[in-house]
C-alpha cells in the first residue's frame, strides 16, 4: 500500500529544537530545581547547621511527610483535575489502620479471636500468625482510601461533576466520618505487632528514613508508568485535550477513575506513615495538608490546566517548601513568615513559567 519514497524525508524548513529548549531544561520543574540548588548554596553560607547530617536527615524526613501524597495529586493534576480530599483521607486511613490494629489485637473484642490469643500467663497477647495483624490493618486503611478514590472518580468521570466541588465535598465527608468513627478521640496503634508497624513507618534503613525510601521507589514507579505505559500516555492525553482523547478511543472514564483511586491510595499510605511517625492518629491530623500538597505539586511544575507534571517536579516542590521552612527557622526568622513566603513562591514559580513560554 505504501509508496516507496523517491527521496528520504528532509527537514530543510523545520529546525530541530536545541537540547536546552526541550525536555527538563525547558520545563518549570527545571527552573525550580535550579532555584532549589541555589537555595541550598545560599543556606549553606547563611547557616553552618544547614548541611549537617542531622539537619539534612530532618529535612528528608519532613518533606517525605507530604511527598507521597503529592505524587498522587500530581497524577490528578496532570489530567486537569484536582483532589482536595487528600488531607482528610490521610487522617481517615491512619485512623482506620490504628483502630483496626487495636481492635483485632485486643482479646475479647469481636473478631480478635482470629488474630490473637493469650499466652499461658494470661496477660501477654500473642499473634496467631506473625504479620497478619499488620497486613490486615494496613489493608483496612488503604481499603477506605480506595473507596474514597472510587467515589471521587465515579462522581467526576461518570456523573460529570466538577472535580473541585466533588473533592471539596469529600474533604468534609471523610473528615466528618473520621470524627464519627473515633468520636473525636485520637487513637494509636497497639498490640503485639505495633512495633513492626513503627519500624516499617519510621525506621531507618541504610541511614535513610524508611518513608524516604518508599518515596523514591514510588516516584520511580510513577515515572515509568507516566512515560512508558499506555495508561500514562492516556493520562497526559486526557489532560492535554480530553475531547481528542475520547475521539481517539481512549477510555477517558477509566483513566479518570484510575487516577483518583491512585491519588486516594497515595494519600492513605501517606497518612498511615505519618501515623507511625506520630505514634498516633489524632482526629485533626493532616488538616489543610491538601493545600501544602497541591502547592508543592504546582511549584514543581504540575499545570492546573492539565497536561504537564511528573514525579521529579512533585518531589522538588516538596523539598523546596521544606527547605524554606527549615531555612527560616535556622535563620531565626519569625516562623509566621513561612506561609507568606510559600504563597509568594507559588506565584513566582508559575509566573516564571508563563514569562518563559511567552518568550519562546
Amino acid at each position, binding site marked *: 500500500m505504501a509508496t516507496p519514497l523517491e527521496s528520504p524525508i528532509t527537514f530543510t524548513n523545520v529546525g530541530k529544537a536545541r537540547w536546552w529548549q526541550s525536555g527538563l531544561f525547558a520545563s518549570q520543574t527545571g527552573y525550580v530545581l535550579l532555584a532549589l540548588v541555589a537555595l541550598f548554596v545560599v543556606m549553606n553560607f547563611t547557616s553552618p547547621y544547614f548541611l549537617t547530617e542531622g539537619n539534612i536527615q530532618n529535612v528528608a524526613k519532613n518533606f517525605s511527610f507530604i511527598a507521597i501524597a503529592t505524587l498522587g495529586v500530581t497524577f490528578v493534576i496532570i489530567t486537569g483535575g484536582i483532589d482536595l480530599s487528600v488531607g482528610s483521607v490521610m487522617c481517615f486511613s491512619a485512623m482506620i489502620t490504628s483502630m483496626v490494629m487495636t481492635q483485632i489485637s485486643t482479646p475479647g473484642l469481636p473478631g480478635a479471636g482470629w488474630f490473637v490469643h493469650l499466652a499461658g500467663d494470661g496477660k501477654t497477647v500473642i499473634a496467631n500468625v506473625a504479620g497478619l495483624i499488620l497486613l490486615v490493618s494496613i489493608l483496612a486503611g488503604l481499603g477506605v482510601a480506595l473507596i474514597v478514590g472510587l467515589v471521587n472518580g465515579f462522581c467526576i468521570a461518570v456523573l460529570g461533576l466538577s472535580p473541585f466541588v466533588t473533592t471539596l465535598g469529600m474533604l468534609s465527608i471523610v473528615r466528618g466520618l473520621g470524627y464519627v468513627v473515633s468520636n473525636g478521640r485520637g487513637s494509636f496503634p497497639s498490640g503485639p505487632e505495633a512495633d513492626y508497624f513503627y519500624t516499617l513507618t519510621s525506621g531507618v534503613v541504610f541511614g535513610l528514613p524508611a518513608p524516604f525510601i518508599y518515596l523514591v521507589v514510588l516516584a520511580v514507579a510513577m515515572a515509568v508508568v507516566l512515560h*512508558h505505559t499506555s495508561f500514562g500516555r492516556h493520562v497526559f492525553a486526557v489532560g492535554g485535550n480530553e475531547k481528542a482523547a475520547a475521539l481517539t478511543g481512549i477510555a477517558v472514564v477509566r483513566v479518570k477513575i484510575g487516577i483518583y483511586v491512585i491519588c486516594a491510595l497515595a494519600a492513605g499510605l501517606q497518612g498511615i506513615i505519618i501515623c507511625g511517625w506520630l505514634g498516633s492518629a489524632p482526629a485533626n491530623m493532616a488538616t489543610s495538608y491538601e493545600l501544602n500538597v497541591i502547592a508543592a505539586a504546582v511549584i514543581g511544575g504540575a499545570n492546573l490546566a492539565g497536561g504537564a507534571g511528573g514525579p521529579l517536579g512533585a518531589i522538588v516542590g516538596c523539598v523546596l517548601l521544606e527547605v524554606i521552612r527549615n531555612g527560616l527557622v535556622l535563620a531565626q526568622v519569625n516562623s509566621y513568615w513561612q506561609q507568606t513566603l510559600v504563597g509568594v513562591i507559588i506565584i513566582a514559580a508559575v509566573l516564571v513559567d508563563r514569562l518563559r513560554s511567552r518568550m519562546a
Partner: protein
Amino acid sequence: MVTPHDAGLAVLELKGIGKEFGAIRALHGVDLRVSPGEVVGLMGDNGAGKSTLVKIIAGNFPPSHGEIRFDGKVVHFARPIDARAIGIEVVYQDLALADNLTAAANVFLGRELKRKLGPFALLDHKAMAARALELFGELRSETRPHDLVKQMSGGQRQAVAIARTRLSNAKLVMMDEPTAAISVRQVEQVLSLIHRLKEQGVAVMLISHRMPDVFAVCDRVVVMRRGEKRADKAIGDTSPEEVTSLITGAKEAA
C-alpha cells in the same frame, strides 16, 4: 489512477439516507457512492445537512432511514469505534490532537505499540517514532516524530492528524474543514496531503466551504441543501459559479 464514480466497486454506498431529530428533518433521501482513490467534495451552507451526513457515516448516530454499504456489505454502527474498526476515519476540524504530546504519541494515541518486559507491557517508543517518521515521509511532511504538537504549524498538525488515519489503513477518510483556519502556504500542504491519500487508493470526503480548495483536489463535488443532495457532478462538468448558485439555492438542482 482509479477511475472515479462509475467504477464498479464503491467503497461507500449510501441509499436513501434520512435523519429526523424530533420534528426536524435534517436529511432526506440521500444517495451517494464513493470509489477507492476518489476525492469527493461535500459542499453546502450551514445547516444544509453536511455534518449530519458525516456523523452518520462516522457512526456518531444511526440514520432514521436508508442503508449504508461499506465495501459492498450493509453496515450498522453503534459507536464511532465500530466505523473506525472497518476503515472509516474522520479528521476533525479541531484536529483532535493532544497539544502536550509529541507527533508520534498523537499518531499512536489509543493504539500504542508495546513490547513485553516480563509481566509489564511498556511503550515501544522507538518503533512508534520510526513508523511515524515513515508515515510523515509518505505524506511528504517535514514533521519530526519527537516534536511537541503545540510547537507545530497548522500544516504539520494536519499531517499528524492524517498520519493517524494512515496508521489504521483506513479506506475512507472524511476531512471536516481541514483548510478553514490555516495560512495559504499551509493550505497547499494540506491539499498535497489529500493527493497523497488519493495516490494510495484511499477515498477522501472533503467537507469544505472553500471553493478553490474543492476545485483544486476533488474529482467530484456533491452539493447539499436543506437536507437533500442537490447535485453530484464531476469537477470537469461544473464551475464554481454553478456550485455557488446550487449552495445558495439560486439554482434548485443539477
